[in-house]
């Protein structure tokens, strides 16, 4: 897919607002042609990072490079980057045509060429019919397309998008998501996309950068992030419902390495070396995905010791049910197929296969790598 040459490089990029750290020393290589998502809760520094790349915020420390050139102090006008704002920031007092033509007029292109290029981009974004309308009168989807078109028309090297789908209602959002992804594939242009919506990031991004409190939690493909969360934060942020976390003691009994919490026991002899090398104080947090806890009836033979639980709550969704199961002092969230029959109050035997476990060190909150 992408030429593995970094187009944008951030080196120890830092931003403080009146002493509050928004971004705490970020290192990142953005690859040419990739769709990179910044994912994190609000206030995690993802938008600030994007604005620093665009030149709208001045970094407190650190450097930004574009194709190897240092652009840290370059004014935003000269960076040649496109930015799509969360609320589109259209020029409300102008027509759609003038909105699209603005960047070209600023560059002093001849009117004939401006008109040709505006028409061309309007055709591509299906805005031809509204070219003469005031931007303030458009519907949301058209506003979004004008915002995209206005940015694309100057052919920026990198497109920066700040939660551009936030204002859409859920149904339309999925459609626009696909449109955006298609647009990116057609243009082959590098895009950095900021979102707090994990689904958006995981479906659109070639790579996802998960941020929290101004720091990088994990950078990886959507698959890496869902299957191998690098920290407790990532594991708790990704997935709906999120992963179950169970604090467990590590001990050796009869030559077997066991993790134990009350009546729950996992045999982790296989990873004994890895755990002992990375664990700090004999305790581990076990993460189990809601789909990795299987009712005994649905599990294949030999997946682990059956565990008796009581069904506390059943939440039916369209194709699946979310169960809350009580074991000892724990409440585990489990996803089962919608066809699985179960009532609240019943007893249910489940298995938790050891191969599906994620282990985290409670002190560093980092994942314990098992392989």
């Amino acid at each position, binding site marked *: 897919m992408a030429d593995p040459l970094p187009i944008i490089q951030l080196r120890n990029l830092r931003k403080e607002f009146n002493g509050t750290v928004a971004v705490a020393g970020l290192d990142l290589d953005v690859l040419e042609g990739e769709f990179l998502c910044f994912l994190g809760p609000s206030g995690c520094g993802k938008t600030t990072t994007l604005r620093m790349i665009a030149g*709208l915020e001045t970094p407190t420390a650190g450097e930004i490079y574009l194709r190897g050139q240092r652009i840290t102090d370059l004014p935003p*006008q000269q960076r040649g980057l496109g*930015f799509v704002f969360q609320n589109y920031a259209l*020029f409300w007092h102008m027509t759609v045509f003038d909105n699209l033509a603005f960047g070209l007029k*600023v560059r002093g292109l001849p009117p004939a060429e401006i008109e040709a290029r505006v028409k061309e981009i309007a055709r591509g974004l299906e805005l031809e019919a509204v070219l003469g309308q005031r931007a303030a009168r458009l519907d949301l989807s058209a506003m979004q397309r004008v915002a995209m078109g206005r940015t694309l028309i100057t052919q920026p090297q990198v497109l920066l998008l700040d939660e551009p789908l936030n204002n859409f209602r859920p149904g339309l959002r999925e459609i626009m998501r696909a449109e955006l992804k298609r647009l990116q594939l057609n243009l082959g242009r590098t895009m950095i996309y900021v979102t707090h919506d994990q689904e958006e990031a995981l479906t659109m991004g070639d790579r996802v950068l998960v941020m929290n409190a101004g720091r990088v939690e994990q950078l990886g493909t959507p698959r890496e992030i869902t299957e191998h969360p690098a920290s407790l934060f990532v594991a708790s942020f990704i997935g709906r419902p999120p992963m179950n976390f169970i604090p467990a003691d590590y001990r050796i009994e009869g030559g077997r390495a066991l993790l134990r919490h009350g009546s729950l026991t996992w045999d982790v002899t296989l990873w004994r070396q890895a755990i002992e090398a990375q664990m700090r104080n004999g305790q581990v947090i076990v993460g189990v995905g809601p789909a990795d806890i299987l009712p005994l009836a649905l599990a294949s033979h030999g997946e682990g010791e059956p565990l008796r639980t009581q069904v506390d709550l059943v939440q039916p969704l369209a194709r699946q049910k979310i169960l809350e199961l009580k074991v000892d002092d724990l409440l585990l969230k489990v996803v089962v197929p919608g066809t699985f029959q179960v009532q609240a109050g019943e007893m249910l035997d489940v298995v938790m296969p050891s191969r599906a476990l994620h282990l985290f060190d409670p002190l560093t909150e980092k994942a314990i790598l098992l392989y």
Partner: protein
Amino acid sequence: MAETAVTTPTVTSVARPRLSARAWVGTLLRLLVAVGIAIVFLLPVLWMLSISFKPPTEWLEYPPTLIPKEPLIGNYTFLFNPGNPEGAIAVMTGAAEPVMPAFINSLIIAPVATVFSVIIGFLAAYAVSRFRVGGNFMPFFTLTTRMFPPVAFAVPLLVYYSAVIPSVIPGLRLYDTRLGLILMYIAFTVAFALWMTKGFIDGVPRHIEEAAILDGASRWRVLFTITLPLVRGGLAATTLFIFILTWTEFLFALIFTQRYAITVPVQVSHYAGAIGRFYGPQAALGILASLPVVIAGYLIQRHLVTGFTFGLIRE
């Protein structure tokens, strides 16, 4: 509607007249309140209009009548061509002077001061709103000149403006000049211009300007092609407000003019005071003096509406 109720006595049609009766009472009450308020505000104006068409015998008549018994336009013609009424008194108070010079002075001083005040205020407001020039308290400090009774500035300014002792303190020679009043009016209204336009500029989302900057536009270009059109209505409202302030300013015009730079408000005061009671011409001049403001307000009415709704610019 009452008929409908009689011919089709269904539940809805019975309910309808009762509802509309309530609505009717509501409308009537609203109308009464509106008329009451209108009378309170308009009566002085109507009274002035009435006197301006009355002959001298009716000026102080008791009981007064709103409609002149013998209407005439002599009060208006007197303003432009006073002749020699009541001799010495009119000459002493200045009522014998024709009003044209005062009108010309006002028509120069007020618009020029207004335009400069709004331009300076707008640019200052932009700097404050976008770059926090002068720190967070700067806009507040601009108001300090308005925190004293204006007359407190009269004596110091008079010293600056006039040649107190020509050979020792030459002064600025601005006493009784149009430029003198213009400068003074700009100084006194620019804080209002700053505060009013700042409110409108604050209402323009930063993102819109940032989008233009990322499209390659310079700050000046952003200011003139993006921000300025978006606050156009606000500027119109500010301009009208400041024009009213400068057009009607009396105190400083009275103190700082004597003969050449007399403005309309000062001229108005010439007709009735400790001596002289030319109530008719005074009322006539009051009516004429209000016309420029009324006309200006009417002309920019359309912008005023957009100005006040633009507080609702979408983010």
